């Protein structure tokens, strides 16, 4: 191997280790190799027992998020050469239960995603025969960036509020709720607001904006959370000044 770089990988095999331990592997340092290529080199040639998720290797399936030198990253889009001469530390995403090696448990997010009703809610469905809902490019623009979320969980690994309060719906779920709220075809914003405003976590978000900074797809979850806080505050204020009023 002409040039190599060390990958320090967090290992955790629940049948073997009671807590995570580091293991170091030398991998070739090639210009076009990503951290993911390094992990696959280990799995193919050095130790087939290393477990991690990956699939599309083009930054769209959202499988391969990990901590790289302490920062949450899509490993398929993170080049080894950025970390030369090394070593590169690879760990599972922060704030999630670790299942095995670099694999985290996702069930908490999956439940939260479903809880915010990420689908078009309508009082009355338009029959297919009546054609499409018209939506101008400007109306599309209103929600488009929130629709770009690939569910990679990188924002959760960057979110100090989620780290402290696991009940918090978290950046991606709130951004996806907002994606539907802002869609001109949707009528479910009220339902989603009442679900989210029951959570303490949303008030704990101090607009640090880490989620937006780390998003590999340029989604702005911090913006979505602020929009929610504003809407919830208005709702709360309205119920305060007119508790008997508008029901």
């Amino acid at each position, binding site marked *: 191997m002409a040039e190599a770089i060390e990958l320090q990988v967090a290992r955790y*095999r629940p*049948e073997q280790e009671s807590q995570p331990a580091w293991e170091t592997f030398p991998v070739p340092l090639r210009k076009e190799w990503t951290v993911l290529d390094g992990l696959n080199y280990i799995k193919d040639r050095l130790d087939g027992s290393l*477990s991690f998720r990956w699939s599309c290797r083009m930054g769209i399936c959202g*499988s391969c998020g990990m901590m790289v030198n302490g920062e949450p990253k899509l490993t398929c889009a993170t080049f080894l050469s950025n970390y030369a001469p090394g070593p590169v530390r690879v760990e599972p995403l922060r704030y999630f239960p670790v299942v095995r090696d670099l694999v985290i448990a996702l069930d908490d997010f999956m439940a939260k995603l479903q809880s915010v009703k990420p689908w078009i809610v309508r009082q009355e469905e338009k029959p297919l025969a009546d054609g*499409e809902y*018209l939506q101008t490019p400007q109306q599309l623009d209103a929600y488009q960036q929130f629709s770009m979320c*690939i569910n990679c969980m990188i924002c959760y690994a960057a979110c100090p509020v989620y780290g402290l309060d696991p009940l918090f719906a978290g950046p991606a779920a709130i951004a996806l709720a907002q994606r*539907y709220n802002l869609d001109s075809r949707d009528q479910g914003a009220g339902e989603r607001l009442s679900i989210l405003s029951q959570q303490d976590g949303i008030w704990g978000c101090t607009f640090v904006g880490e989620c937006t900074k780390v998003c590999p797809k340029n989604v702005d979850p911090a913006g979505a959370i602020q929009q929610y806080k504003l809407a919830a505050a208005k709702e709360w204020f309205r119920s305060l000044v007119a508790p008997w009023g508008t029901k």
Partner: protein
Amino acid sequence: MDISYHDVLLVGGGGAGLRAAIAVAEVNPKLSVAVVSKVYPMRSHTVSAEGGAAGVVKPNDTLDEHAYDTISGGDWLCDQDAVEIFVREAPQELLRLEHWGCPWSREADGHIAVRAFGGMRKMRTWFAADKTGFHMLHTLFQTTLKYTAIARYDEWFVTKLLVDDGRVQGVVAIELMTGKVQAITANAVILCTGGCGRVFPFTTNAAIKTGDGMALAYRAGAPLKDMEFIQYHPTGLPFTGILITEAARSEGGYLLNKDGYRYLQDYNLGKPEPKPKLRSMELGPRDRLSQAFVKEQEKGRTIEGPYGPIVHLDLRHLGEKLINTRLPFVRELCLKYENIDPVTEMIPVRPVAHYMMGGVHTDQDGATPLAGLYAAGEVACVSINGANRLGSNSLPELLVFGARAGRAAAEVASGRRPPNGKVLAQAQDEERRLKEMLLGSSGGTERIATLREEMQETMESSAGIYRQGTALKQAAERIGELKQRCDRLALDDRSQTFNTELTTALELSFLLDVAEAMVHCAAQRKESRGAHQRTDFPERDDRNYLAHSLVHRNPSGAPRVEYVPVRITRWPPGERTYG
């Protein structure tokens, strides 16, 4: 051993599987329907589709024109009755997705926008910028979350179909999180596992595209159809194989050889014009464009790059604004993975294995010859794609035939019947086999990666863009040897928890079955048609091969290949003309 029961079981949670699941839930909300997928559904490879989804929607277009483009694009190997159903139902399905929230790109007045695509004579490709598959998949997945009837087995890996009494009765699957092996029984099973691009070393396909459903069906006794037809997409990034969408050319991109010359004009694809012209030049069909690349290479007119020969895709004249609004993902991929900016630089590209036209033999409702077994999407072959699929037909295909398979399966599956003892015994045998693999009791020494690389080299050198009889015969022998060696794998990983080495080993054995089917079908089709080009038989031969190949597994020797005629309705075989 745990057993669970469902009426309808989907294997695979991509576009076809999710569309089928919703169809079942809508036909009969009382049915128990479950999606079992080796990845969380939103990770499925539908997510990577970029350019768009074809469906006739504009007043200047007709269903017959979409049908003709599809049939001529497929070099007359498509079943025309299936194509007619497909073009009729595609617009409805795309519209349904619009109602479910898919963020389709729009005209200024709010109507659906369409773009040009290769081999299509009208603009009829719906798109969501250049992340169409991503948006379709997430729309479908998020929409399934509102159907309480749809159960999910996320990150469960199916290893076998349970067949008894001539009927598929369910599957055996491993729960990755715990290593538990379970029988999941059902009255109907729909395979929606997608393609098998990973039989090749250089592919656009994600790591998970390992032909699982094709191999599961093949082993269970269902024939595979037209497996010799694999599509090379003309524009992949070197090294990674990442797809640069055809939309880059439909928006006006040029393909240039080392002299900066639009070489497609030398291959009977029309005359170069500054603006894109439908069914011409860069908007020709994928098979012809990939073949033209090889010819350019033979003439010494490609450019030698660090990962082999390339040509250039030039988008610079389109301008930053158009690239940002219509092709943002292309720009992102080039910047992130190739470190070049298509606004100011040319993109190096080469043909890359992309799509399997063949698959599990089904009828128009997704039914296979094996009772209780259905298939839809890339895993299936209906066939609407014939010898070469047109770009933007695969996304509507998975919707149309996913929905049809779901409805058909729902009809036959009402009323649960517990599985009989024989099925349980099969499931227990499978559990034993998996345990033995895991414990390494076979004493094997072979490494997964070594066998996989040998298989991929064999396939690239024998079953690529151009093929030849002797090489295919040798490849068939080689794949046979690799299959034997695959029985003697050595695994490093003995863990029950998220053992991805075990699943990788199972995927390798699926890939080898698919590779076997491909090389045998390719060796026996002694003609050139669409994506199957034989240097020893360079002409299309309608007298002998206007027929689909059906390949049946033979546990004790070479697979058996037979032919069934193509169904022609209104478009007699003719010459494919472009330009």
